Every structure is written in structure tokens, then in C-alpha cells.
């Protein structure tokens, strides 16, 4: 692709500069290994955890049951009308990201983001099959021989297996995992299961295997938001240029007229970078703060007998102080700032409020929708009848007998549409199936002369647990509507 007007101008489209990160060992690499293990284990294992909920509910610990509109998470079961719990969790996740960003910078990008984790995984596959950085580069530039084709096919097959395993694990969150796996392989699973698995296999394959750091640099909005959120007190991975510059190799340093800095320009920090940037150019959008350059640089510094942490986790303010000769500030002090504490406070408050709401919520509920057409009905004896559609929700995983009653509306009685009017009473009993919402048509009848008024439907489970809920509704009579 050339620019249309003149030759020699910059190309319109730029080919990706391939990144071949070198393997590195060190504190942060080990942390990344461990964290990668944890995150991948959580992702792949969670659907297989079991949680006994009795005979009426699924026994999968974490299950998003879209077909039945239930969300299970260990001991918690959420119904669609309680979606505010999920909304609360999402808000907590958002504020949690703010909190983490304020405290430790782009730690999400560097350690936990699925794009990072899977890219990291795929890069290990690269090293396993093609060898380390130099071997990878050689193979990249090599002609398409049988050897290269074999290696590429093997690598891409491994990519595909990992991707399929990833896409396949995703769908297990939405149905009983063992059953779904059996159905999946016997061809009996729902089409949407195959579709979702195929789609996620494809996205994992393309995003993790090929697009990699381009997702972070071009597609993801998060680095942009991060640049707005970071301040001079945020921990970032940074190169201490006042210590490193002017850079030069050990040999050059021997012949230089003025003393050179600690950086020997070995480019190890660039070689290990999974996004292919040069951290010495300063903080930039491509830096996901995975801190592998710290590991690489520390190794070089220790070999040279120079102090470590030429590249370091530091705040801009801390750097200024250090540059001026001050002591390195403690990490704890960096973390305990008003801004961090306020985010932590907000995050905890929402969390506690959610926990409180979760702990005190009633596991049954009543609501009543009044008939709008007709709003009232005069019967032959002059009494007035109003129709209601009552919903009784039983959120326990056992059948419950619930007594529905009328509060207020003197002289009124009610009966449901499977009873006769002669059985009308102030209350009636309904058995609600476990984990179900039952709908009952109810007729409330009040003697002639009753005025239009509000009244309440009450619900009271007849069991040891008890409890009480009510719903205010309205009774209409002729001439008062």
C-alpha cells in the first residue's frame, strides 16, 4: 500500500513488527508464572466444581443458567429481579480496577488481563516449539521449507488446541459441565454451544496467537483510560534515566571522556518485552507493566556488579526525589495514599452493602398485578369483584406452602380461579414449587358499598423459617375509578 499522491511518503498501512520476546527468569517472571497458573486454573476448573443444593437445583458451583434465568455462585443464587447484585459486582469490578490502577498502576494489564495471560501462554508455546528469541527470528526469516512448514503446523495446531480448550471451557459456565461435555461430543448439544465454542476458539486463536500486543496498542480502550488515571503517585515500570544515561557499553565506557551511566545499552529490556517496546523511552501506551524488563535488567546489573533496579517499579514523584538524592520511598507509603484509601473505602462499602443485602434478603416474595380491563366487576348480589394476578416467588430449593392473605379492605374475601366462590376466605394457601415463581389468578370480593381503597396482599410461608412479605394494591369500585 502506497500513499496515492507521492512516492516516498510514509506508507498508509504498516505491517506488524513481529515481537519475539526472549525468555527471562526473575522475581516478576516467577510471579507471572504463578499468577498465570492461578488465573488459568480458575478459568478451566471452576465449571467442574460441584456444590450440593439439594434435589431441586443444579449442583454446579458456578452456573449461569440462562434458560431458567438463574445465576448460581456457590451458596448464592440470584434471580433476574435481583440483577442489582450482579450490577453491584460489576461496579465493584470497575472501582476495583480504579483501585488497582491507583495503587499499582497497570497491574491488570500486566498480570490478569486474559489477553496478557493467553498471549503469555502462546509465547511459551512459541519458545517450546521454535526455540528462544533468536531461533524464532531465524525461523521467521527462513524460506518455507518442509522443516518450517512442519514447525508452523505443529505450533498452530497447539494454538488451536489451547484455543479450543479455552472456547470449550467458556460454554461450561452456562450448562451442567459433565452433561454438556457428553452432549458436545455426541452432537446433542444446543447449536449455540457449538457456535459459542467455535467463536471463542477463533477469537482466542487470532487474538492470542497472532494479534497479541496489537490488541493492547490499537484495540483496547483500557490503556487510554489508564493514561488518564495514572498520576505522579502511581506505580509504573520506569527507567531511571538519570542513573542510566548517557548509556554505553562497558568497552565504550572505558574510552569515554566523561563517565557513562549504568545502562550498557545491551537491549535486554527490549528483547524480553512481550509488546516489543523500549521502556527507556519512558512510560507509553504499549507498556503493560509486566515488569519482565526489570528482571532482565536486574540480571545484567548483578552480572556487572552494579546496583539493581535501573528499571524499577516506581512513582514519578519517587523518581524525582531519588533523582534529587533522596531515599527511595517505601512501597507501603506509595500504597497508602488518600486516593487509594478512598477507592478502597468505596469498594469495601459497596461490597459490604451487597453482602448485607444478600444476607438479609427474603427467599420468597409476593407481587400483585391488578386487572386493568375490567377494573372492577359488579356481581348479581351487588358486591364488587376485582381481579388480580399474584406472583409468589419461592427462592428456596424446596417446596414451600405460602399463606396469602388480605390486610385491610373490611368484609373482603378472596378465592383463586381453581376454587369456587363459595370457598372465598380472608386467606388461602398455595404450595409453590422449589425455585419457582407461581402465578395465581385471584378474585377479591367486597360487599356492596365498599369504598375504593388501598389494601395489602400478605404472604407468609407456613414453615419453621417463616417470614412475611406484603404488596400494596388497590381495590376499585364503580363510580370511584
Amino acid at each position, binding site marked *: 500500500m502506497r500513499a496515492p499522491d507521492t512516492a516516498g511518503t510514509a506508507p498508509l498501512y504498516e505491517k506488524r513488527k513481529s515481537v519475539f520476546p526472549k525468555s527471562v527468569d526473575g522475581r516478576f517472571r516467577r510471579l507471572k508464572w504463578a499468577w498465570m497458573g492461578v488465573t488459568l486454573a480458575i478459568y478451566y476448573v471452576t465449571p467442574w466444581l460441584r456444590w450440593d443444593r439439594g434435589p431441586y437445583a443444579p449442583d454446579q458451583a458456578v452456573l449461569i443458567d440462562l434458560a431458567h434465568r438463574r445465576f448460581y455462585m456457590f451458596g448464592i443464587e440470584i434471580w433476574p429481579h435481583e440483577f442489582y447484585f450482579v450490577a453491584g459486582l460489576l461496579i465493584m469490578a470497575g472501582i476495583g480496577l480504579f483501585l488497582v490502577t491507583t495503587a499499582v498502576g497497570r497491574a491488570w494489564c500486566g498480570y490478569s488481563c486474559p489477553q496478557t495471560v493467553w498471549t503469555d501462554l502462546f509465547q511459551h508455546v512459541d519458545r517450546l516449539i521454535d526455540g528462544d528469541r533468536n531461533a524464532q527470528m531465524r525461523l521467521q526469516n527462513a524460506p518455507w521449507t518442509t522443516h518450517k512448514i512442519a514447525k508452523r503446523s505443529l505450533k498452530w495446531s497447539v494454538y488451536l488446541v489451547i484455543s479450543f480448550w479455552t472456547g470449550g471451557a467458556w460454554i461450561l459456565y452456562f450448562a451442567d459441565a459433565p452433561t454438556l461435555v457428553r452432549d458436545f461430543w455426541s452432537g446433542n448439544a444446543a447449536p449455540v454451544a457449538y457456535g459459542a465454542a467455535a467463536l471463542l476458539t477463533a477469537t482466542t486463536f487470532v487474538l492470542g496467537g497472532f494479534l497479541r500486543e496489537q490488541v493492547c496498542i490499537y484495540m483496547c480502550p483500557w490503556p487510554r483510560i489508564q493514561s488518564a488515571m495514572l498520576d505522579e503517585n502511581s506505580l509504573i515500570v520506569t527507567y531511571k534515566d538519570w542513573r542510566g544515561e548517557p548509556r554505553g557499553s562497558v568497552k565504550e565506557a572505558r574510552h569515554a571522556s566523561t563517565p557513562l551511566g549504568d545502562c550498557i545499552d545491551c537491549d535486554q529490556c527490549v528483547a524480553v518485552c512481550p509488546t516489543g517496546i523500549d521502556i527507556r523511552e519512558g512510560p507509553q501506551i504499549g507498556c503493560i507493566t509486566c515488569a519482565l524488563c526489570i528482571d532482565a535488567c536486574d540480571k545484567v546489573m548483578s552480572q556487572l556488579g552494579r546496583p539493581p533496579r535501573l528499571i524499577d517499579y516506581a512513582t514519578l514523584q519517587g523518581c524525582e526525589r531519588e533523582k534529587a538524592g533522596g531515599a527511595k520511598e517505601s512501597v507501603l507509603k506509595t500504597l497508602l495514599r488518600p486516593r487509594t484509601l478512598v477507592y478502597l473505602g468505596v469498594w469495601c462499602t459497596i461490597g459490604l452493602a451487597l453482602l448485607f443485602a444478600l444476607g438479609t434478603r427474603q427467599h420468597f416474595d409476593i407481587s400483585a398485578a391488578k386487572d386493568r380491563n375490567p377494573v372492577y366487576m359488579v356481581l348479581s348480589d351487588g358486591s364488587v369483584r376485582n381481579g388480580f394476578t399474584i406472583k409468589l416467588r419461592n427462592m428456596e430449593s424446596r417446596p414451600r406452602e405460602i399463606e396469602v392473605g388480605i390486610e385491610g379492605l373490611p368484609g373482603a374475601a378472596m378465592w383463586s380461579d381453581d376454587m369456587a*366462590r363459595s370457598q372465598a376466605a380472608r386467606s388461602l394457601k398455595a404450595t409453590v414449587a422449589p425455585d419457582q415463581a407461581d402465578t395465581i389468578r385471584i378474585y377479591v370480593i367486597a360487599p356492596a358499598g365498599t369504598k375504593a381503597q388501598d389494601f395489602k396482599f400478605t404472604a407468609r410461608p407456613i414453615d419453621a423459617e417463616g417470614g412475611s412479605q406484603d404488596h400494596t394494591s388497590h381495590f376499585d369500585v364503580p363510580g370511584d375509578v
Partner: protein
Amino acid sequence: MSTKRIDEATGTQTVGHEWDGIEELDTPMPRWWLWTFYLTIVFAIGYVVVYPAFPMLHGASKGLWGWSSRGDLAAETRKANASRANVLSQIAVTPIQSLQGKPELMKAAVAGGRAAFRVNCVQCHGSGAAGVPGLYPNLNDDDWLWGGNLQEIEQTITHGIRQPGDKDTRTSLMPSFGRNQLLTTDQIEDVVSHVRTISHQEKASAASARGAKLFADNCAVCHGPAGTGQRQFGAPNLTDKIWLYGGSREKVVQSLTNAHAGVMPAWHERLDPVTIKMLAAYVHSLGGGEDFATPAQADTKIAANARP
């Protein structure tokens, strides 16, 4: 004009324009973006080939897959009909008398009847089946002109009321006592006094006593000696609180002077027996449906009204 240069900080070439010192970098697009763009073009071509796309003189190009939204609808309708076929055939073979003994079937029938009611019945009886005062009866209440159990409702829907040309339709004709000069204006006023007395709207008076005599002679044959109505004639109960044509003195005088004779069409020519059965179930479910045996007064009516 063209002052393209390499920006020092980024190493990227500028586009060459400059506005008050502000320049724009000419950062190349990533190549994958181009590939994505090509992919969308390939997708678009594929879409145009397999789906209807190009406008022609008549309609549009069909597309290789032959997809159409009407086809979707037809397929969905076929599927829905197929899924209902079993229930419908069960309703078809179940006599309406035993429908109440099968709650699941009854529920399905009520749901089907509700849908059919919305299409065929709401024009007169209203979407809430509350009728129109002075014109069409309310189907929610517990007052029935011709009977309110499932079988009677089915009969009413099938053959209508006063439907010309249907030999099984139920019919009756109240005389227009005023217009046809069967009663004088004063006599009508007296009868009305009696009617409003037995319906507890007025206190007994000399007029109502005179009216009672006239009622026994002229009205009791259909409305019954006590004025409680007789369903084999569709004669309404005059002692209750429900008045299709109004219960005020003025309205009752009008009804006596120019009698009403509401007509309901017979539906058996337009609807199949299963739909009619489901409609009967729906109307019965509206809160006033009567059982086959329980109300003692209805028993005699059903007996009197029995048909072969």
C-alpha cells in the same frame, strides 16, 4: 505548503499541514486493520450472493439460500402449529363436560380461547370481555342470560343468539309493551315501580302493588313469578344488581316501551369446534363460569333447557 517532516518525539512523519503550530502525525494504519476491511468486503459479497439483495423490477434478487422473512414466519407458524397439534387433538376428543376434570387441558384451552377471543369477540364484548352497557353483555360477572356452564356457553357461541337462519339458535322476543300498546304509559310506570321494588331500588308503594298484578299477567311467563328470570327464554333476572340495558326508572321504562333483542352471531360456520370449545373455556374462566351441578337454581334451568 507541503512541509512534511519527521516528528522527533515519535519518529513518525507528519501529514504536512500546520494550523497555528499544530501538526498532525501521519501514523500508518496497522495492516491487520486492512485485512479486517478486506474481510468485511468478502463478507458483503457473500451476503449479497446468498441473501436477497438487489432490487429488481419485481421484488428483489432471491439469493442462493432462498431466505425470506415470510419463509421464516411460515416456518415458525408451522412449528408452533405442530407443537400445538397434540393438545388441540386432545381437546377435540374431550367432551366439554369433562374438560374441567383435566386441569392441564383446561389451562391450554383457556390460553387458546384467550387468543381466539382477541380475534373474534373483542369487537363487541371488549378486550376485557366486560361488554358494553346497553349493547353487549359482560362476560366476567356471575349473571348469565342463557346459562353459564361450559356446555351452555359452547352452545351460545356455536349457534349464536337470535341468529337468523340457524335452526339451533336460541331465541326469544320480549314484546314492546309501549310501542305496541299492550300496556298504557301509566301501566308501564306501575310495572317499573314493581320491578324496581323487587330489585331493592325502590320501596314498595301503591304503584308497585298495581305493577305486581300487571307483572304477574304480562311478564311472569318469561321472567318468572318472582322476577328471577328464566334462562330457557334468555329472560334476565330482574331482582339482581346487573342490568344490561340499565336499571334506572328511565331505562327500564325504555326497555318496556321498546323491547331489546340482542343478536349474537353463530360461529360454527366460521370457527372450528376446537376453537369454539376453547372460547367457551376462556369465557368460563373469566370469573363467573358456573359448574354443571352446584347452583340449585341453575339445575332446574338446565333440565328445562335440555336439548337432545
